[in-house]
């Protein structure tokens, strides 16, 4: 049996034993002061050096990882930007090819219209009336110095002629203006046509201008990526985070769809693979088979989108020649349609099974059969069948957010890893600094334990110091 007082020198006088033990301990600690200080310093130094080393390694690792992440991010973004620019140029090329090839015809048409307008304009130009002959006659009459009735008669004749000519000229003028107005009226459709043509050209130019601006934007981004601009890198990283969040949200929605899909076909699958087969303790084979069907649909959708070059998860598919790619696309589409048809029929079977089971339950409970609701009762069945057919196609589009998740997840994880490493490095560095200071604290704490021997030591040193001073003073005075 362990005796609680076995460590006491004098079990009867505990206080005395403790005092003696304390004195002995103090003496031991005083004797071991220097080596203990050394141990404290060494241990703290070791911790400080180790943490500093690990911290430096972490910072270096984080920096290397950041550079690697940056290069991967920039390479991927460069690729994406190049694809985008390529697409924009393709779009511009299409616009130019489609619209600009009509430009010569349009120009010819416009020129014709302009020529017609010019002709019409020339036609409607005001023709100055010829100077009347009576002006010269009037001049001659004015030169007659003597007269009588002759000039008056002449002037009367002239007046009559003038009146006549005036009437004629006015009538002619009116007719001419009428004609010109008609010409101007006839010009109206030409002007409208010109306006329409110019409007069309303007629209095309605006589209081109928008595309050019977009290309400018992409080019600026591309330039930023090429020059490894930190602003662009930051923007790309933020974009990756946003992309991941959006894609994850879409994936969650898609998973909801997949779950509904699974519920639709799990029960009828038991008709195919048996309801009593289990893979594990609680996992039915029919459930797994339903899951396999859904995953196959998603895979077919993935291949379809890959072969359509909407996604680029498989470089092998992207690098296939067009003929092969088209074949793959067709095969994926056919498989998808077949799977959708299978699922639709399974949905129908599910409805039948549920109805059959409900009828059995009614039989077993000996209740009256449920009243038939006519065509209304077929609505859920039709709904299930339609859902069964449509959901696989909807599920096929999961490939797009999946690709986005795959690409952005790498960036996001990389950034998080870098931040974690930096954080850990900082914590270790801080720990190192704390331990460096902690050595002094421990040293002082140790000295507190042996404060009495230390006081004695100080007193002895002071005494010895006084004696030495006195001896020195004596020797100085003697000399």
């Amino acid at each position, binding site marked *: 049996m362990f005796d609680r007082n076995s460590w006491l020198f004098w079990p009867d006088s505990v206080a005395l034993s403790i005092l003696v033990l304390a004195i002995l301990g103090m003496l031991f600690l005083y004797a071991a002061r220097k080596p203990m200080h050394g141990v404290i310093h060494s241990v703290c130094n070791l911790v400080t050096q180790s943490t500093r080393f690990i911290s430096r390694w972490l910072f270096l690792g984080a920096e290397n990882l950041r550079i690697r992440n940056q290069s991967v991010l920039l390479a991927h973004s460069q690729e994406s930007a190049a694809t985008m620019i390529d697409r924009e140029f393709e779009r511009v090329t299409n616009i130019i090819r489609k619209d600009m090839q009509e430009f010569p015809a349009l120009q010819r048409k416009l020129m014709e219209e302009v020529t017609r307008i010019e002709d019409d304009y020339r036609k409607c130009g005001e023709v100055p009336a010829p100077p009347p002959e009576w002006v010269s006659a009037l001049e001659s009459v004015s030169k007659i110095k003597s007269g009588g009735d002759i000039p008056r008669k002449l002037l009367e004749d002239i007046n009559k002629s003038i009146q006549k000519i005036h009437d004629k000229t006015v009538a002619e003028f009116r007719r001419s203006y009428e004609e010109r107005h008609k010409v101007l009226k006839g010009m109206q459709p030409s002007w409208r046509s010109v306006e329409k043509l110019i409007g069309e050209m303007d629209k095309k130019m605006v589209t081109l201008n928008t595309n050019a601006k977009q290309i400018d934007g992409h080019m600026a981004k591309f330039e930023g990526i090429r020059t490894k601009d930190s602003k662009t890198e930051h923007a790309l990283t933020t974009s990756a985070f946003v992309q991941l969040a959006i894609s994850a949200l879409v994936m969650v929605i898609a998973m909801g769809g997949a779950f509904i899909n699974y519920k639709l076909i799990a029960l009828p699958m038991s008709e195919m693979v048996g*309801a009593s087969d289990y893979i594990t303790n609680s996992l039915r084979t029919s459930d797994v088979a339903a899951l396999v069907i859904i995953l196959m649909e998603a895979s077919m959708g993935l291949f379809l989108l890959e072969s359509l070059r909407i996604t680029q998860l498989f470089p092998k598919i992207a690098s296939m020649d067009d003929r092969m790619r088209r074949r793959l696309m067709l095969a994926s589409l056919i498989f998808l349609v077949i799977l959708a048809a299978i699922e639709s029929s399974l949905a129908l079977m599910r409805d039948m099974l549920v109805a059959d089971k409900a009828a059995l339950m009614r039989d077993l409970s000996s209740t009256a059969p449920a009243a038939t609701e006519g065509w209304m009762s077929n609505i859920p069945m039709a709904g299930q069948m339609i859902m069964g057919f449509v959901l696989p196609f909807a599920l096929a589009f999961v490939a797009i957010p999946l690709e986005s998740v795959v690409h952005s997840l790498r960036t996001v994880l990389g950034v998080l890893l870098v931040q974690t490493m930096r954080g850990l490095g900082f914590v270790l560095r801080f720990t190192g600094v704390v331990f460096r200071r902690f050595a002094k604290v421990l040293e002082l704490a140790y000295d507190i334990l042996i404060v009495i021997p230390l006081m004695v030591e100080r007193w002895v040193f002071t005494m010895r110091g006084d004696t030495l001073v006195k001896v020195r003073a004596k020797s100085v005075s003697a000399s």
Partner: protein
Amino acid sequence: MKISLPVWIMLSALLLGACGDSRIHSQAVYMLVDTSGTYTKEINKATKIISYLLATLNPGDSLAVAKVETRSFTEKDIVDKVTFDRRPSQATQQKRAFKSKIEAFSKDVHGSAYTDITGGLIQGAEYLNETKAGTKTIVIFSDMQEELGKGTVRDFPIKLDGIRIVALNVSKLGTDNADPRLYLDRLSRWKAKVLKAGATEWVVVNDLDNNMESILNTR
């Protein structure tokens, strides 16, 4: 070689099917219906329980209903037995057929002179062990008052390893009312007997309206 989709599905299904043993997940129930004395009047209750079992059991499960007669250790006393198909639609058909057989039996039930519950238990254990089901249950619809005829030997150890025993609707006899210890002793005796024989559980269910789910170990 190109493999078509239906073949793919069938192959996957076969492979997946080969992975697990369905028997350990299936249930087998052997129901003993006491037809002696006043219990012939309780046949409607028994039918109700059979309906519950039919509604609860899944494809791949087994069910047998047998009478408790003067000597019950015989296949002749089995009213009907079935192992439900793995396909739910077929299982539903089988359940319908089973139900009609039970209805026919309930209309033509004759009372027996003696009650050989032990013989029925041995017969039930034999049937259940043959099914190789994961969960085996013997349901006894009786007052648990065993009365053996002359020459019927049942005083030997029986084997009920891995089988649950559920006593249903254990009604009190006239003598039990006078001295409840008789009833309690009877139940205790049966409990000790079946547990000694290796049964995994002994359950008594008298409230058929609210405690029917205790009959089966539902997954």
